[in-house]
């Protein structure tokens, strides 16, 4: 393999990895607070992509439809919390998990009914879809924009969590919900905030996903959701920075398998998951994960 192709493959790895990272942050955020693996997260991502698609198709400028999509996804996230998760706050965790899977199926099938199962073409403005030619390497704009946005959002998240009052409330909720309530903090409002933040990230992830791979269908969140979940676990679920690291590792693993062992390319998902198992064997809390009872984010 010549150096040019190698460089190109590395760029591909950054592109895919940052996509997983963006979605993994949302997983980890909700898990950190509620210990809930929100399996509907990938589907919220799909809702975001579809909302942007519908808004843009009905004549709204692209930038504004992105904002609308984020709002729609936030509302969806908050509603799922209010309707499905809140009544189960004191129920065993397994009930919550099953409910999350139920929400996931519900959203997928709702959109199947509304939009049909045939993939739709997602159109984005030219400045987002073109690519830059640099010394024989082709760099799609998304490869520059997505990692930048991911990193910016990562720092925004860390800032909110560590420097603001709401962040402090979120972190304290992660330790002990009943005690936090006793301190006069409105726990339900804070949880709502967490879902809103997580869903907004999912929507941004979904829209970037749709820009990079311009075909959207109601089941688009399933595989990405699973990969992002794996990325979050790999990085140490509950850790925001870990989710980003996990996303990049997963993205690079997939690209490297296809690039260096094309005949084994069909097993790239298997390689990614074998890698996950290996990491968990030696460090059960994931790369950045600490003892979950003591530390958060």
């Amino acid at each position: 393999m010549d150096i040019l192709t190698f460089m190109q493959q590395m760029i591909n790895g950054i592109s895919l990895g940052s996509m997983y990272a963006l979605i993994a942050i949302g997983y980890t955020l909700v898990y950190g607070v509620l210990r809930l693996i929100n399996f509907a997260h990938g589907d919220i991502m799909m809702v975001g992509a579809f909302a942007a698609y519908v808004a843009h198709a009905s004549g709204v400028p692209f930038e504004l439809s992105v904002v609308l999509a984020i709002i729609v996804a936030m509302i969806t996230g908050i509603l799922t919390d209010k309707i499905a998760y809140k009544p189960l706050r004191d129920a065993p965790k397994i009930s919550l998990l099953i409910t999350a899977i139920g929400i996931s199926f519900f959203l997928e099938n709702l959109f199947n009914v509304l939009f049909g199962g045939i993939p739709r073409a997602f159109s984005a403005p030219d400045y987002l879809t073109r690519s830059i030619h640099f010394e024989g390497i082709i760099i799609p704009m998304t490869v520059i924009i997505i990692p930048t946005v991911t990193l910016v959002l990562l720092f925004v998240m860390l800032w909110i969590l560590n420097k603001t009052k709401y962040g402090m409330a979120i972190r304290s909720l992660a330790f002990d919900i009943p005690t936090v309530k006793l301190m006069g903090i409105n726990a339900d409002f804070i949880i709502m905030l967490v879902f809103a933040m997580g869903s907004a990230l999912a929507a941004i992830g979904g829209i970037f996903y749709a820009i990079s791979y311009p075909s959207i269908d109601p089941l688009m969140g399933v595989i990405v959701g699973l990969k992002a979940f794996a990325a979050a676990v790999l990085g140490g679920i509950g850790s925001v920075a870990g989710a980003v690291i996990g996303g990049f590792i997963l993205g690079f693993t997939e690209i490297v398998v296809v690039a260096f062992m094309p005949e084994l390319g069909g097993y790239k998902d298997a390689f990614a998951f074998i890698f996950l198992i290996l990491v968990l064997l030696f460090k059960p809390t994931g790369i950045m994960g600490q003892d979950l009872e003591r530390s958060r984010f």
Partner: protein
Amino acid sequence: MKKISTIVASAALIVSMSYAKEIKIGVVLPLTGPLAAFGQTSNDGLKIAYAQRHTLKNGDTVKIIVLDDRGDKVEAATATRRLIDKNKVTAILGEVASSNSMAMAPIAERSKTPMITHASTNPRVTKGKKFVTRACFIDPFQGAIQANYAYDHGYKTAVIVTDAKQDYSVGVSKAFKKAYLKRGGKILGRVIINSGDKDFNAQVSTIKSKNPNIVAFTGYYPEAALMVRQARAVGVKAPFIGGDGVGFPELIKIGGKAAEGFMYSDHFNEAAATSKVAKAYVAAFHKKYHKPADSMGALAADAYNMLLNAMNKCSDPSDKICVNTNLRDTKNFQGVTGLINIDKNGDAIKSGVVNVVKDGKFAYLTTVNP
């Protein structure tokens, strides 16, 4: 009391005998999921064929029960079992994807229910099966059409793209390779994809470094559209050639400008439709859907009519064994997609066409006879 019930029972028997029976055909299609376009276009064609004819010679009416399997092997098998056990269908029509048909075939075989797949082209679908028939040509033929067309038009080196999850793709890849090498072409390499994937940047970068004359894409349309787009974005100039799995409007809608020049072998193009049957079908299709008639719908219509023809040859159209024997015996059947003969394996011997994406439309290039 006993007397009354006997009278009622015999009256019921007489009534049921004098009325025409209802013959059920179970249909399994991917109406949602990644291959939804296959299922929905098949269903469109089936509806046309059903509207044109749904009574048998002896006055029995035909009823079709359509189940969605979401493009999933397990769901396809479950749907088949349900149609046979619960709905008591006389025959099964479906699926599109070879992998799904292969999941259904053993169930049809065990229950001795005639099954006809309208569009599964992998040879293994009918192999060793007595109750599975198909209305389409098989992959060795399809692969040879592509390979010969590519080589004869000056594309002497190729990279093959195989979808490792789909038996269809594995089959076409093998057939393409064999025919292409035989013709004198050179295979520069093979890249693997998985259906459901969206990121093919690694694969297209590899293709770019190999610099072939043509890319033989053997998978389905969702991946085809995204892959050709990503290939053009990194600067792959070679045209793509594929099989019947790519010829869907979504290839153009999602692929956009990148899909221009994408060639593929297919079962049918309405531009090449000359028979009376085909013309009637195309006219009805245009009237109802206001879009060009596609190959999946045409194949589904043919499969349906082959079933009805076989049923007409039986004194009892619900006799599964008789229907199957006659279905397997189909000779010189004039279908929408051309003249169909079923060989001893249950495979259809018929002609194919080559189409190309031109100016955002599917244009007809040529017809290839078996």
